């Protein structure tokens, strides 16, 4: 078990290294010049050269790479071209918002999917199964940014039940509200992005749970549980569902990357100040260090979640445990 975790961690680190290298070279080989984003009619030509030096773009490529790796190992991801602030500081500031949205959405969609999947597997062939499947699939394939805009239109603009975006209400925070009030404010802002992201994600879990349950229900131990005279509910929950969950955890692991993609889009639409919006903006501004840093942090979050899910699988699967 410990060996397994260590292996997974090693794999993760290797993955990160490959990503870092590819990204570095990709960015440095692109046309155009970031110093060009800072143009002032009065700037003399020598000053432009100074800007280039300031951004460290005057050294040979391979030397830059070695410096870059050395820095990364020390936790230094360079400085943003725009603000000259250390990238690591900027992205760590944004991390809590992303974690909040991502974790709650992932947990919620997983739970919801599992619950509905279990339900409709039990009640096969009825209108419930068909409607849930269709509804889930519709949400799964809907265009997320558009869906987000629609949700804002209806629930914020028309009904005025939720705020129009962002993570907090500034007027509240500058006038010294209590921590509890601030927490409620954040939750109020979290509601819509969470709704959107969860709706889009839950169908994946739901469908896998359903097919997995169907298979499990055929298994011998379920038949014998029923024969023993146990109540349907116990059969469903304790016997069938627990085993049906294993493939679900596998598919869940695979879906984490997809959830993060959705998370980035959701953050954009709702102006949620997380690492996702930071990535989009850095890409627009061609702020290479910041874009890379944001991407790496996102990749790390997903990789960590993957390892966690894999560990969870190992914990859940009795077959592996008894080895």
């Amino acid at each position, binding site marked *: 078990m410990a060996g397994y975790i260590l292996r997974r961690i090693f794999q993760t680190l290797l993955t990160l290294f490959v990503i870092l290298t590819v990204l570095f070279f990709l960015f440095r080989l692109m046309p155009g010049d970031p110093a060009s984003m800072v143009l002032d009619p009065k700037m003399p030509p020598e000053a432009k050269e100074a800007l280039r030096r300031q951004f460290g773009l005057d050294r040979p490529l391979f030397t830059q790479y070695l410096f870059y790796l050395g820095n990364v190992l020390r936790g230094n991801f360079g400085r943003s071209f725009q603000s000259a602030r250390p990238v690591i500081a900027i992205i760590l500031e944004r991390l809590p918002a992303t974690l909040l949205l991502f974790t709650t959405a992932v947990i919620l969609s997983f739970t919801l999917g599992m619950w509905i999947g279990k339900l409709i597997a039990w009640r096969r062939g009825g209108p419930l199964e068909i409607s849930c499947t269709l509804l889930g699939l519709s949400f799964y394939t809907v265009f997320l940014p558009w869906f987000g805009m629609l949700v804002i239109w209806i629930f914020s603009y028309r009904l005025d039940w939720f705020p129009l975006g962002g993570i907090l209400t500034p007027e509240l925070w500058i006038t010294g509200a209590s921590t509890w009030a601030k927490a409620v404010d954040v939750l109020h802002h979290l509601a819509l992005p969470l709704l959107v992201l969860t709706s889009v994600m839950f169908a994946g879990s739901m469908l896998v749970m359903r097919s997995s349950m169907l298979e499990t229900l055929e298994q011998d131990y379920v038949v014998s549980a029923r024969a023993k005279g146990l109540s349907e509910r116990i059969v469903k929950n304790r016997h069938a569902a627990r085993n049906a969950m294993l493939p679900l955890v596998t598919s869940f692991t695979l879906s984490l990357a997809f959830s993060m993609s959705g998370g980035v889009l959701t953050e954009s639409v709702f102006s949620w100040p997380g690492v996702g919006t930071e990535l989009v903006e850095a890409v627009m501004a061609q702020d290479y260090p910041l874009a890379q840093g944001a991407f790496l942090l996102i*990749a790390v979050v997903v990789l960590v979640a993957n390892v966690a899910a894999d560990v969870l699988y190992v914990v859940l699967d009795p077959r592996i445990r008894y080895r």
Partner: protein
Amino acid sequence: MNWRRWLSVRRNPLGFLGAGILLCFVLMAILAPILPRLSEIYDPVQGMDPEILGTSFPSRRHLLGTDAWGGDVLSQLMHGARTALLVAVVAAATSVAIGTLIGLVAGYFAGFVDGTLMRLVDVMLTLPLIPLVLVVSSALGQLSIWGVVLLIGFLGWPGIARVIRAQALSLRTRDFIESARAYGAGNVRIILRHMAPSVLPLAFVYMSLTANGAIFLEAALSFLGLGDPNTVSWGMMLQWCFKTGNTFRAPYWMLPPGLAISALCFSFYLIGRGLDEVVNPRLRRM
């Protein structure tokens, strides 16, 4: 594999629903050039109605209204179908071609080759696609539609590779492969002439599912502002609606492209699932 039996609608309602929706979009794409031929105000890229300034509600002249520059929304929507289908087909085909090839090679040779390739697949599968595409496209600068398509194609192969590889692994020990080798057939020949046809059905299934992803990616890129501005795409339409502040006041502009993207993705997904049931015996009992 008794195709005829499974292709009956009763057994596979979702697949046929998907095919039906796809057909509508194909029709839309085919009929798209008709409008600009009627009048140049319907040109999707440069068309402007000289009598209408800005957005307007649907009318007889413009069945879906006009956008912020007096351009016809319906014409843009129809031409967007062409872009979407192009992206879907080319990107999916690229992904599937690369993925199948890699999967076959990994499955056939097994051992070290398989190990390394699957490591690579694992690495790529853990990367979230949208952030990856964002970061790569920012490095490549302004992309043309072909650039976008190829980018998506080159990033989408890992999922297929894994599945094909599993199939290839089981095939390599089969009799007909053994006998082909005994006859002295080279590796390339075996892979291409003997193994490939067997995995092709599976590849088709994934082509449909990859198409779904490709459309979504292109739309997302365009929506965020990184697509090709010279082609009409649904994602672009949404982006310009959003950017000019018309999201909540021009539903005839905001709703159709979003619905179209969602519907087309939905159809490809259903088709993929339908084919999946045909090809993959385990799921047949639905």
